[in-house]
């Protein structure tokens, strides 16, 4: 078994469970895994009317980045950005040597809502430890809100760090704002397409999101209203090292 998978297990079931498993089944490889670092990560949606798709939260080495502005998005990121589907991105994280642990959210995070994640990693990882959090703003064509590889290195126990996340335009889908192309609830009555492999935005590059125009501001084909607008930052990520 690879150790990363074990860390992931530990993060899902919680450290208490992992430790109790330790004493009850001494032949299980889990027992030898030292998950000294434990982080509680709270993701809060600061937007007015943009539900966040189930989030991806990962601990990794500082050399890892899920994306770079000015570069083209991976297909895994495109699937998250256009349809809120985090499965390919989670699989990609799971297969990366630079990633220590990754977790998918339990569900959408409503405006004003939050979700608590607990992730663990080996204490040897602290020197280069970094955090990424990604989710789609679902009442958009392809907006991803992200904490993109921010350092947690050298955080002490009980120390807290907060990150205000920017949202990004994945650049993979034209920002038509129509009910047929937006998967979120604002597009009720439309086809609400998620992922489409065609890349038809003005340029196939990730940029900081410019926000939505909306029908209330003159884009007649938009299904969105003034209520769907947002500004940076749209998500607050609070990290506490608890062990």
């Amino acid at each position, binding site marked *: 078994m690879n150790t990363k998978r074990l860390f992931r297990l530990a993060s899902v079931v919680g450290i208490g469970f992992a430790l109790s498993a330790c004493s009850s089944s001494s032949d299980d490889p889990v027992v030898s895994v030292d998950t000294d670092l434990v982080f509680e990560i709270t993701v809060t949606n600061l937007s007015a009317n943009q539900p966040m798709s189930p989030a991806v939260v990962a601990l990794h080495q500082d050399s890892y980045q899920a994306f770079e*502005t*000015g570069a083209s998005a991976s297909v895994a990121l495109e699937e998250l950005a256009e349809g809120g589907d985090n499965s390919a991105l989670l699989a990609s994280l799971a297969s990366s040597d630079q990633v220590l642990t990754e977790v998918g959210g339990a569900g959408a995070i409503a405006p004003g809502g939050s979700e608590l994640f607990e992730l663990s990693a080996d204490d040897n990882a602290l020197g280069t430890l970094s955090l990424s959090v990604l989710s789609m703003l679902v009442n958009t064509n392809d907006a991803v809100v992200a904490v993109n590889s921010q350092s947690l290195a050298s955080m002490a126990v009980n120390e807290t760090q907060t990150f205000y996340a920017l949202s990004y335009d994945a650049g993979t889908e034209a920002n038509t704002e129509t009910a047929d192309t937006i998967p979120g609830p604002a597009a009720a009555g439309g086809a609400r397409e998620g992922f489409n492999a065609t890349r038809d935005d003005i340029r196939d590059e990730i*940029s900081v999101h*410019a926000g939505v125009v909306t029908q209330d*501001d003159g884009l007649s084909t938009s299904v969105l209203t003034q209520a769907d607008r947002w500004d940076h930052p749209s998500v607050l990520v609070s990290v506490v090292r608890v062990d």
Partner: protein
Amino acid sequence: MMKIKQLGFSVGLSAALFSAPFASVASAADLTVEIENLTRSTFFTPLVVAAHPAGTSLFDLGAAASSEIQSIAEGGDISGAETLLTSIGATQDNNPAAGLLVAGDSATATLNTDGTANVLLSVAGMVLPTNDGFVALNSIEIPTDAGTYVYYAKAYDAGTEANDEMIGSGTPGEAGFPAPGPVAATLGSGGTGIGASAEGFIHIHRGVLGDTNAVGGESDIDSTLHRWLNPVAKITLTVN
């Protein structure tokens, strides 16, 4: 008094030379400054990239723009700022993109402050298309420890020109914004102009409105292409 106030760069000059505690301490740093345009489809005109002495600043938020900032913000002309920065002994590597810095691209300036008192870093350039918007990093303290430092820079409104969003002039005091070829290719035309007036002070830019009418409407700016939200630039400072 008014004149001194207008010369934003020189306000702090005398203080820096004669009373600032660090003025006599030579800084010694070999710096690279990478500026990345984070916007969707907006241009930056030639950028000022300068290290300058303690006590000096590019501009004061809430105050009237200097003529040098006005020239940058309305027309992308950095010559006045360059002259003023030279007069206070700044270390400069201006216009690293050798022209327009297009959306998604980066440009890197190098500054060597050895033997100078230049401990602050500033970056400024016009955001196009806007009437008098400029992206800036204003007088941040250059870290003394070697390493890489990331700053996200905002766009400001110089407050010197009405935001009518019309193609026009880059000359300070004249309406509209300049539209060099690559920019013009993305713009509409024939707008009637948005009713707005110059605000009179430097503030966080409220963004552009634009419209979806390429041959009319109120604005020559395209609302589906040219809008942006702050921050508009990522600035990576490497202290070697």
